[in-house]
């Protein structure tokens, strides 16, 4: 059974090849800037930049759009709320205590657009073009300086990596246990709430028991292979910034600068 976590889109584009740290930092910066810009022009420029990134990533546009789906409701809700709650000099129409204001319409629209951009940008930089493992690696490296103050960055990364490793295994196991219990008559989707909950318990308990046993055995196996924490450990694949990371950082800085200039000079 093959199992894909998140919605990574396998390809060999420029965006895929960037160091995960570059991408993590870039998405952070993009996020911050998105909170700072509000004018139509910088927003349009941001959209343009996003379009270029999508083109560079080789991810089909349809997939990027799909990633926005979960926030559509939120965006529409915020928009509608804005339309009816923003005070204005005149209203398009009023109904009881609700007043539809043109200004609210524009404020809400910009807010929705920013929300969409936010999700698209982070999805594009992170989940769509970066494997979970690269992410874990990147986060570890970024957090490593904090280890000096006792922050367990290595342990955190090891935990993430092991979790990723065992997702398919536990998924298989869940499937197996569910089948075994349903041949004993357990029910997960029909019957009353109590019957369903009982069916679920009959799956969850064995799953936890087995996960604990696996954890115990894995710990022994790791110890047998000389694992003793992050200290003195080398890595097979070491993250290295390449020239393309430099270029990416440079272009990103320029774009961000342009955006801020456009936002604050009121051209």
């Amino acid at each position: 059974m093959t199992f894909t976590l998140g919605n990574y889109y396998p390809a060999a584009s420029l965006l895929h090849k960037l160091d995960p740290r570059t991408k993590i930092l870039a998405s952070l910066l993009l996020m911050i800037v998105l909170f700072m810009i509000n004018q139509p022009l910088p927003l349009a420029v941001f959209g343009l930049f996003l379009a270029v990134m999508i083109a560079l990533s080789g991810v089909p546009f349809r997939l990027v759009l799909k990633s926005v789906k979960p926030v559509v409701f939120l965006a529409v809700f915020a928009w509608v709320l804005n339309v009816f709650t923003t005070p204005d000099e005149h209203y398009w129409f009023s109904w009881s205590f609700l007043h539809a204001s043109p200004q609210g319409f524009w404020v809400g629209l910009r807010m929705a657009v920013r929300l969409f951009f936010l999700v698209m940008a982070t999805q594009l930089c992170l989940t769509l073009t970066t494997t979970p493992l690269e992410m874990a690696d990147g986060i570890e490296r970024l957090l490593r300086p904090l280890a000096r103050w006792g922050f367990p960055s290595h342990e955190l990364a090891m935990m993430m990596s092991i979790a990723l490793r065992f997702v398919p295994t536990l998924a298989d196991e869940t499937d197996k246990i569910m089948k075994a219990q349903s041949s004993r008559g357990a029910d997960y989707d029909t019957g009353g709430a109590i019957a369903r909950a009982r069916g679920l318990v009959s799956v969850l308990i064995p799953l936890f028991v087995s996960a604990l046993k696996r954890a115990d055995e894995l710990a022994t196996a790791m110890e047998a292979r000389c694992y003793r924490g992050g200290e003195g450990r080398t890595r097979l694949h070491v993250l290295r910034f390449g020239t393309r990371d430099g270029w990416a950082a440079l272009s990103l800085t320029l774009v961000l600068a342009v955006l801020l200039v456009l936002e604050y000079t009121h051209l």
Partner: protein
Amino acid sequence: MPDTFIDIQEVCFAYPAAADTPEAAAQSEQSFYEAESAYAVDHISLSIKRGEHLAILGRNGSGKSTLARLINGLELPTSGAVWVDGKSTAAEQDIWEIRRSCGMIFQNPDNQIVATTVEEDVAFGPENLGVKQPKLGQAVSQALAYVGLSDYAHAAPSELSGGQKQKLAIAGILAMQPACLIMDEATSMLDPLSRQTIMQLVRRLQQERGLTIINITHDMNEAVQADRVAVMQQGRLLMEGSPAQVFHQVETLRRLGLDVPVHTAIPFYLGQRFDLGFSSGSLATPEAAEQQLKQAFQFQAQPQTAAVSPAQPARARALDQIKVEDISYVYQAGLPTAKRALEHISFTVSPGEFFGVMGHSGSGKSTLIQHLNGLLRLQSGAVHILDYNLRQVKDIRQLRQHIQLLFQYPEHQLFAETVWDDIAFGPRRMGFSETVITENVKAAARVVGVDQSWLQRSPFELSGGEKRRVALAGILAMKPEILVLDEPAAGLDPAGREEILNYMRILSKAGTTIVLVSHNMDDLARLCDRILVLDHGQRLLLGTPAEIFAHQELIAAGKLTLPACKAFLQRFQADCPGLNADCFSVDAAVAELERFVTLKPAARARVRQQQELQERRGGTAL
């Protein structure tokens, strides 16, 4: 220059109070309550030479895994000392060097893979040792090439088969440049083919790299490949010697619940009928055993008995309980990853029949049995179970009352607070009345030897074998007419295996129809009335064991393995025409051979001598 590599001196080990180390009970496969009482390892002294292949045999809970963990310092002896290459495991500064040089592979392939790609997992050990690039990369690619996994370097571990995962584990050890490889029942969860490849790999490591091999196992087929065998029982070292010497103690080993190679057991018991003993170690190989028998016995032709007709005609005529017609199944149909699991399978099973399904991993066995109780939806063809047509069943639970499925490693499905509740789960879900449930639970517990005193305990306190019996009872408590079992004895030691298979026999005698899925040809041949052989989703053969194993061409092509008893009997077919080689158990084979042999004069003289010797000792055969 064979020098001592590992020296175990008078070692005792007791797990600290079992309550705070659940692993103690789980790891030693010993029940929670037993684990407290005794030493897990009790005054063991053993020295292992550099480059030696030592097999440690013993039942589950005999302390053999603990011994392995003492060797690489995962546990420290309570008293005594373990020396590895001149270093004591108790010395803290040497422990990492000892663990590096004594790599260990464990039973469950899944639970020892740390990283998300094959290549990074191999690198895990050397990374921990602080090996730097480019040496690290070289070590990884060399290790992968050695075990033949280079093509999978970037694959996810979940894409590998069980055998490949164990190869990966071996590669992970090799990358640390070890001197010794400890295998803790490393093949017990694999199918026979993967077991063979792993053992071949291990032998190659011993020969080419001079690795010391310690193989903890209860598979005697592996133990005979070792240079030396040690047998453990309740933490003590009971026997030690060459495989030929150790396996000659047929009765002692059987009493310990261990297996003996068929080619040793058959001559031994045959000799016993004539009061003839063979000298120790003389029955080491099938060839030697054949020679010994031919020296001792005169073979004469006998009329062929009407071969024990295996197909009971009375059964064959009855109405079919299972009728599978032309079913095919494709996983992920329509996707590029589609995989054909079954192609045009048809067969029927009559009431009370003991029906076997045989095939290697990936042959479609599991897919097939999941069709029988509607866990998988029919894609094409038809399945009739009793009076139900699977396509038209409204309430699948009604059907499942009559046909129950026991999955591999069923102990993993236990969940209730008490053993009683777990066994009663099924009957309750099926809506039986409380009185019927009580009755059924008691009856089921009795059948599989679940002690009354366990019923109010938590199932998680039991040992592996005990849990399996509870899981089986949970299925039996629904009183199914048809029982489908997927490798019910997998991972158990020989005695545990025999016990479980014996319950099958009892149930079958009581009239339950049994469908047994296994890749163990010996077991299937011994137990089943008819066997269906699957190969890559297709029906290869269907017939009685005698019919199945008459297909020499398939045996030669490696699709089937000849059961060991039949293989041994075939050696005598030239000498005794009329010998029926279709005997699939030691007892049957001995009985069959006995008809054809008389003692030669020289052997008769020897028997007399042995008897006189015994009488002079006072008649005690100890």
